[in-house]
């Protein structure tokens, strides 16, 4: 009886070792902690089994899934809202970003904020991209963080579009 449980648990650990995709990893972890709490139960540790079920297989997977969900969204703040870029799905700018986020299976969050200064935005608010219309050459400036890996990928995508200029912001170092 114990051997079946132990075999199953070690089998799940080995699957987790080889699993690459995060979501399936979390499901395996939930099943793993469920089996562990069954094993605690068999060792007459009823309190620990109850705690393990409540925390290990209910709460932690929930936190993991929310964390994965939050990571997957690409936050765009745009200070411009006109024909080229607006909430409607058909505006060209929006289609562009849609293509980018779909290629990296990110969900797109777009906010329209007309008077937000850029200085603290990247560090304080989890913003990935800021769109500003520059007055000199009338182009749309896409501003991204230098430290983020995503700006290489977005830059490759935008090279051919004349109306967009790409800009990378260096994180302002906090000297303390």
């Amino acid at each position, binding site marked *: 009886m114990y051997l079946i449980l132990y075999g199953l648990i070690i089998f799940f650990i080995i699957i*987790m070792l080889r699993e690459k995709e995060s979501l399936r990893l979390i499901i395996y*972890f939930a099943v793993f902690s469920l089996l562990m709490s069954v094993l605690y139960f068999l060792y*007459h540790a009823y309190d620990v089994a109850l705690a393990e079920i409540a925390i290990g297989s209910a709460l932690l997977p929930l936190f993991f899934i929310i964390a994965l969900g939050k990571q997957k969204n690409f936050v765009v703040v745009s200070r411009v809202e006109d024909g080229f870029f607006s909430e409607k799905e058909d505006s060209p700018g929006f289609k562009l970003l849609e293509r980018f986020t779909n290629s990296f299976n990110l969900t797109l969050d777009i906010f329209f904020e007309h008077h937000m200064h850029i200085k603290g935005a990247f560090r304080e608010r989890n913003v990935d991209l800021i769109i500003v219309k520059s007055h000199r050459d009338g182009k749309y400036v896409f501003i991204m963080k230098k430290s983020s890996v995503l700006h290489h990928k977005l830059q490759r995508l935008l090279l051919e579009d004349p109306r967009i200029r790409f800009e990378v912001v260096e994180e302002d170092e906090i000297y303390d």
Partner: protein
Amino acid sequence: MLQLSLILLMIGLGLYGLATSRHLIKSIIFLNVLEAAVILFFLRLFYLPEGTAPIITSLGGEAVDPLPQALMITTIVIGASVTALALMMSIKIYHQYGTLDWKILLEKEDNQ
């Protein structure tokens, strides 16, 4: 004897997972796996085949030692709070660096 060796194998696999996981979320998951294996090791050391839970009730049987169970509840809560913190940090790291891969994360030079 066999069960103890299987638990030691689990602890070894947990450490192996920590030592070879490339993705941040995977490291956090294997931290919890290692912790669950350590709890199992503690409880297994005090297992009595014909024992019963340490609750004073009518049904007989020799009660299992309650102290390990009290300590392990504390360990589970510790594991939960560390995981919650580590996940919140991983969200902010993802928005800062765009990736959760340990290799790329650690290659980015501190901007000094």
